[in-house]
């Protein structure tokens, strides 16, 4: 069954788009990632103009992260204080990111920079995480948070000033590392057009040593704001948010996210990390191959608008 998209100016198959929304929503609820880095390429593959794909997928991320956060919140799995610190850093980061993005665009190399940073970030994070979680799975499923945090244990992040108590995460650490992490995520969110979940989640687990269960909910909380900001920005500057496409994606996404949260809970945390690592590595591989393989058509068209 086909439906016409008024902004993309083309028809799409209703069930295909709902299914895609559901699949991405599932991953989002389970791992705490937004899923934009999967959704955008898929939409473009089906012929949705890139500007519309990028702008519209962010509405789906708002919906599925709200859906996921509320469910995690009821289970006490969201650290709002930590989320707030990350978000504060994120605002600073996005202002820096806009300037970096404009400079890259002027040089005509924004695409290459995005792909390269994806490959580098996804590759290193995915690789480290895969190795660590594989060890954990082998040694009987101890989670990073509980196994390595001995009482009174100190790590490099613990020596910094401006200490804050994060009750939910059971942490008493300096506010500087999470704020810096927020800046980095905000910067990447603008430049790469993503919520940053797949970087934020591992960073919270391994750098801040937050419990895995809390990380997913807190990451989703942060992503809501990043995605909402991105939707608004695209609607104002490009008028490229397609409401019909958004409704279809959301319809699938919100339900997918609910199933994802529930399925994620049943999974042991080391297995959860292993699965996320595998997903991140697969996407890294795909992007890496795209960079190296000769393109089917070396030419690409960017329609800038009416004369």
């Amino acid at each position, binding site marked *: 069954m086909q439906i016409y998209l008024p902004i993309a100016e083309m028809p799409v198959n209703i069930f295909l788009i709902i299914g895609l929304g559901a699949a991405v929503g599932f991953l989002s609820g389970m791992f705490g990632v937004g899923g934009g880095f999967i959704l955008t390429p898929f939409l473009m593959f089906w012929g949705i103009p890139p500007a519309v794909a990028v702008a519209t997928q962010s509405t789906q991320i708002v919906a599925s992260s709200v859906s996921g956060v*509320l*469910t995690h919140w009821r289970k006490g799995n969201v650290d709002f204080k930590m989320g707030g610190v990350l978000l504060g850093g994120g605002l600073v980061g996005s202002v820096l990111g806009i300037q970096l993005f404009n400079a890259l665009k002027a040089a005509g*190399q924004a695409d290459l920079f995005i792909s390269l940073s994806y490959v580098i970030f996804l590759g290193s994070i995915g690789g480290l995480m895969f190795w660590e979680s594989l060890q954990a799975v082998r040694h009987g499923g101890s989670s990073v948070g509980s196994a390595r945090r001995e009482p009174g244990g100190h790590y490099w992040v613990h020596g910094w000033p401006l200490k804050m108590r994060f009750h939910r995460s059971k942490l008493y650490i300096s506010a500087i590392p999470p704020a810096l992490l927020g800046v980095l995520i905000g910067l990447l969110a603008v430049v790469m057009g993503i919520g940053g979940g797949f970087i934020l989640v591992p960073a919270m687990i391994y750098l801040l040593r937050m419990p895995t269960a809390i990380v997913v909910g807190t990451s989703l909380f942060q992503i809501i704001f990043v995605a909402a900001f991105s939707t*608004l920005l695209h609607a104002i500057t490009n008028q490229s948010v397609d409401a019909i496409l958004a409704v279809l994606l959301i319809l699938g996404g919100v339900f997918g996210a609910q199933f994802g949260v529930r399925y994620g809970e049943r999974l042991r945390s080391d297995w959860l990390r292993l699965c996320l690592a595998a997903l991140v590595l697969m996407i890294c591989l795909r992007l890496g191959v795209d960079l190296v393989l000769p393109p089917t058509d070396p030419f690409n*068209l960017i329609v800038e608008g009416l004369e």
Partner: protein
Amino acid sequence: MRRVLATLAIAAALAAGAARAEDLAAGISRDKIEITSSFTGTDVVVFGAIELESGEALPATEMRDVVVVIRSDKPYLVTVRKKDQVGPIWMNRDQRRFAGVPGYYFLSSTRPLKDIASAEVLEQFEIGLDRIALGPAPGAIGGPREFREAILRTKMTQDLYSQHEGAVSFLSGSLFRTTVALPPNVPAGHLKVLVYAFADGQVTSSSTMTLFIDKTGIERGLSEFAHHWPLFYGLAAVLLSALAGFLASLAFRERH
């Protein structure tokens, strides 16, 4: 500039052909297409008749070729980038900006274009995919042909450009018709329908019509909302998305 030349050329051709002045009366099965939520493309028939100005039928000895061109009114600015290999990586190297790129171009003719008129004449009227006047954008430099060909190739794979030589058929000596399959992704707006009659490699008569592709109902409302009140549209999109997420989590809590 080329438009002006084309108009002058028609005038000259008509003046030259004054001895056998003829009329081209053309019509279109629908002059307005409404895009609704179930729009998946549609067929339109362009038809017409060629007769002497006196109203008599053309003498049987007079053969005409007909070319039907449908193109969007407003041209687009397009940037074409070319990837090249740098070390192991393929990256954008060269780019050219083009102006005058139609969003839609359809051509149908009685015979192969090369048998109908000379390249110069076809060029004047922008008849043929490879004769669309794509020029460098203001301030841009021209480049190798491959950039221009990339535009045509991409638009053809998207079904937005097409050329059907031999698809105009004559029902009788003077009545002709052709069917246009408008693709689902045809850009909304005005399309120009141009019909040319050719004899001995020259345009003997022509006709211009307009086909209006318009969004209706909810499609139109959303599209106008998005373009006229972008801030509110964006806010509405965010709020509705958040509301949808909220409702979904409520629905699931009750069941749990």
